[in-house]
C-alpha cells in the first residue's frame, strides 16, 4: 500500500532543480519547477537509464543529462519523437513540506 511520506522542506530543493530520494522502489527524483510545483518520477530515464534528477528542468519537463531526451514531469512520458515512460509518483507540498506517495 502506498502512503504519503515526508521528504524534505520545499526550500531544500533548488528552484528548477531536484533531489534524489532513496526508497524501497529505487531512487526517485523529486523536482521543483519555477512555479514551485513539485513532481516525482523514477530516477531512471526510459532511454538508457540516465539519472533524470541530474537534468536541466524547464517548464514541466526535464532534459536527461545523458542523451537529452525530454521527459514530461507530470506524466513521466518522453516527448515525441522519443517513446518511453518513467514511472511517476504522486507528490505534493503541504505547509512547505514535500510529501511523496510511496510504498
Amino acid at each position, binding site marked *: 500500500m502506498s502512503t504519503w511520506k515526508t521528504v524534505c522542506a520545499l526550500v531544500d530543493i533548488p528552484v528548477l532543480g531536484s533531489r534524489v530520494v532513496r*526508497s524501497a522502489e529505487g531512487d526517485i527524483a523529486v523536482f521543483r519547477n519555477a512555479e514551485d510545483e513539485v513532481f516525482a518520477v523514477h530516477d531512471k530515464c526510459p532511454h538508457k537509464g540516465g539519472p533524470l534528477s541530474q537534468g536541466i528542468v524547464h517548464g514541466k519537463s526535464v532534459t536527461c*543529462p545523458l542523451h537529452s531526451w*525530454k521527459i514530461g514531469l507530470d506524466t513521466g512520458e518522453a516527448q515525441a*519523437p522519443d517513446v518511453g515512460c518513467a514511472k511517476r509518483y504522486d507528490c505534493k507540498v503541504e505547509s512547505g513540506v514535500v510529501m511523496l506517495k510511496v510504498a
Partner: protein
Amino acid sequence: MEKLRLVMIGNGMAGCRTLEELLKHAPDLYDITVFGAEPHPNYNRIMLSPVLAGEMGVRDIILNPLEWYAEHNISLHLGKKIEKIDRINRRVIASDGTAAKYDRLLLATGSSPFILPVPGNDLPGVIGYRDIADTDMMIEAARLHKHAVVIGAGLLGLEAANGLLLRGMDVTVVHIAGWIMERQLDQASADMLMASLEQKGIRFKLNAQTAELVQGESGRVCALRLKDGETLPADIVVMAAGIRPNAELARDAGIHTNRGVVVNDTMQTYDPRVYAIGECAEHRGVAYGLVAPLFEQAKVCANHLAMNGIGRYSGSVTSTKLKVTGIDVFSAGEFMGGDGTEEIVLHDPSGGVYKKLVLKENKLVGAVMYGDTADGGWYFQLLKDRQNVAEMRDSLMFGEMAHASRIGDAGHQGNNKAALMADSAEVCGCNGVCKGTIVKAIKEQGLFTLDEVKKHTKAASSCGSCTGLVEQILASTLGGAYQHANPSDKAVCGCTDHPHGEVRKAIREQHLLSVSAVMEAMNWKTPNGCATCRPAINYYLISTWPHEAVDDPQSRYINERHHANIQKDGTYSVVPRMLGGITTPDELRAIADVADKYQVPTVKVTGGQRIDLLGVKKEDLPKMWEDLSRAGMVSGHAYGKSIRTVKTCVGAEHCRFGTQKSMSMGVKLETMLFGMYAPHKVKLAVSGCPRNCAEAGIKDVGVIGVDSGYEIYVAGNGGIKTEVAEFLVKVSTDEEVMEYSAAFLQLYREEGLYLERTCHYVARVGLDYVKKIILDDAERRKELYERMLYSLQGFEDPWLQAVKDPEIRKRYEILSV
C-alpha cells in the same frame, strides 16, 4: 473583442508556411480562412518529381493534413478557386459563390506553367507540370501510351522526362537553347549531364522550336512538329518551358503588378492590407521559382501579420540541384563568369566529374558542379557570406574537407560522402540513427531544417558531431530547397528567434545580469527556456559581466553543475588538476588514498597528462574533494566548457634538445587561466622545441619554444576533426606568451558562440581579423589581457566551495523515505 479576419488565397507551400509561422507568433490574433483551388491539403510540391518517378506516393508528401487546419480552427475551402477580390467591401469571392470578408488578405497563388502559343496547345494530352492532378495525368498516360515529349530542358522538364522514362515511356526532350539547363549550367557540365541522361534512355532535340501539336484520330495529341519539319510521335506533351506568376487576380483588383504581384520588403502589396508571398510575388524585380526564398519571405510576412513589426526581406541568393536519382548536379550564383571574374575549373570527362568555381575580387560568386556535388552546400555558404577566399584559394577546388580550417563543427571524415552513404549506414552514433531513417523522415514528414530533423529523428541532437553530415543529407535530399544554416544567424534554439549574437548584445547593452532577466527582456517564448538556451545564456552572462552576473547552477550542464563528469551509469569521475602535467609523491599518495578509501573502481592516466578517478558515487564527491583539498589539490575542470589542461613536455629543464623551459611556462599559463569558463573547452600545450612532444600543433593555444623565444599557434583541435593550429606570432619572453595567449582567449570568450571551439570561431571570423586585433593593436591586446585577468580574479576552487558551503554540499546528499 472580435478577432481580425485573415483570408489566404492559395493553399500551397508559401502560404501554409506563413500560417505556421504566424501561429507561432500570434496563435489567437486572427480568424483564418483559406481557399485552395486544388482539392488537397498543403503538400510538398517539390516531391512531385519522386512521386512521378514512382519513388514516393502522394500520401507521403502531405505537409499539413486536414487535422492540422482543424486543430488551429482554420476554415478551409478546398477545391474553391477565388475569382475576384472586392477591395471596396474587403471580401473575396470564389467560383461557387462562397464569399469571405477580410481585414488582412494573403495572396499565395503560386504560378502556372507557361503554355507555348502554338496551334494544338489545348489538345487533350497536352499538360503543364505543376500539381497532383498533372502528376496523376502523367502516370495515367504512361500506363496507356508509349510516346512522350517534354518541351523545355530545365529543372522541371528533366525531372518530368526522367519520371516518364521510369514509368516506361519513350521520352524526347525538345529544347530551344544550345545546351540543357542553360540557366543553371555552362555548356561543359550540361554536356556531361545530357550524356548521362541519354545513357538512361532520354532523347534530346537541341536548338529545336515547336511549330505545332498535331491532333490524332482519337482526338488527343499524337505528334509534335518542329519548325524544321521533323515530326515526333507524342501521346502526351508536357510543357515545361517556364512558369508565370499567378498575378491576374490582383491585377484585376487594381493592385500594382508587374510579372508578379509587386511587394515591398515586408511582403505588402500596394494595398497595405494585402500581402503577397511565394511564386506569385515579385520582390525587387525578382519572382522566385524555388522554395528556399519562400521560407524566408514567410518568416517576414508572418512577423508583420503578427504585428511584431520587425524583420525585412531583402532578397535571396538561390542554388539549384536536380532531383534525378543517381545524377548529381549543382549550380549557384553567376556560374557563367563574365567581366572581372576568374574561373577555376576541374574537368574529368571519363571520371564523370566537372567543377567550375567563379571568383571575383577574391570572393566566390558562382559555382557549377557535375558528378561530385558534395561540397555544394559549402560553396553556396561561402558565396552567400561573400567570404574572402584568397587564403584558401589553392585548396578551394578540393572542397570543404581539403580546406584545413573550415566553418562549423561539421563532423567526421565521412562528411562529404553523405550522398553516397548506404541507407543503413549510421549517421548519429550517439542515438543510433542511420541515413535511411533521416532521409525517410525528411521526405515523409516534410522536414526542411536541421532543427526539424533533430526533433524528429534525434540525429545530431546529442554530441552534435554529426551535424555536418546531417546537413549534407538534408541538402542532398532537398536539393535547392535546402537552406544551409549560418551559425551566427541561427536562433539559439526553439525558445526564441534571436540568434546568439543578439542575445549577447542585449546582455551587454542592457546590462542584464540573470538568465530570467534575459528571457524577460528578449521575450522568450517558453517560461524558463530549455537545456539548449539556458547554458548558453548563463555563459554569455558570466563572460560579459564577471563578478556581477548571477551564475545559475540550474542553467549549467550536469557536469558543470556538479563539477564532475557524469558516467553512463550515473556515477562521476574526479580529475584533480595537475599543473602542466607535473605531480609530486605527496599528490600521488593523496590520490592513492582517496582511491582506496572510496573504493574507486578505475584509476586512469588521461590523454591530458593527469589522473582520472572513475566511477565515484555522487554522494562521495564532496568527501573525496575534502581529502584532496587537504593535500593541496584543486578541480581539474575536466568537466567544463572551460580551461582543461596545459600539456607540457620536459623541455629545457631536462631534455638535451630543449630550448625553453616548457614545464614552467606551462605551469604559469595554467595557473593564470585557472577557472576560465569559455564558449567551449580550451586546451593548451607548451613544447620545449620544434620536435613538439606536447603536441602543441593541435591545441587551442599551442606554444613552441625556439632558440630566440616562443612561437604561438592558435585554433588547433585534436577532437572530432583534427585541425592544425595556425601560426599567430613569435615572441621572446614568458610575459609576452601570457599576454598574447590570454588576449586571444579573451577575444574568443567575448565573441565565440556558445559551444563553438576556437577552431570554429577563427574559421568564422578569419585569422586576419584575429591578427589585426591581437598583433596590430597593442592597446586592444592589453585591454583584452586585462579583462581576462580581471574576470579570473579571486576565482575560488569549486570543489573547495562545495566542501565548505553546507548549502552546496546538500545538493550532493541523497534523501530517503
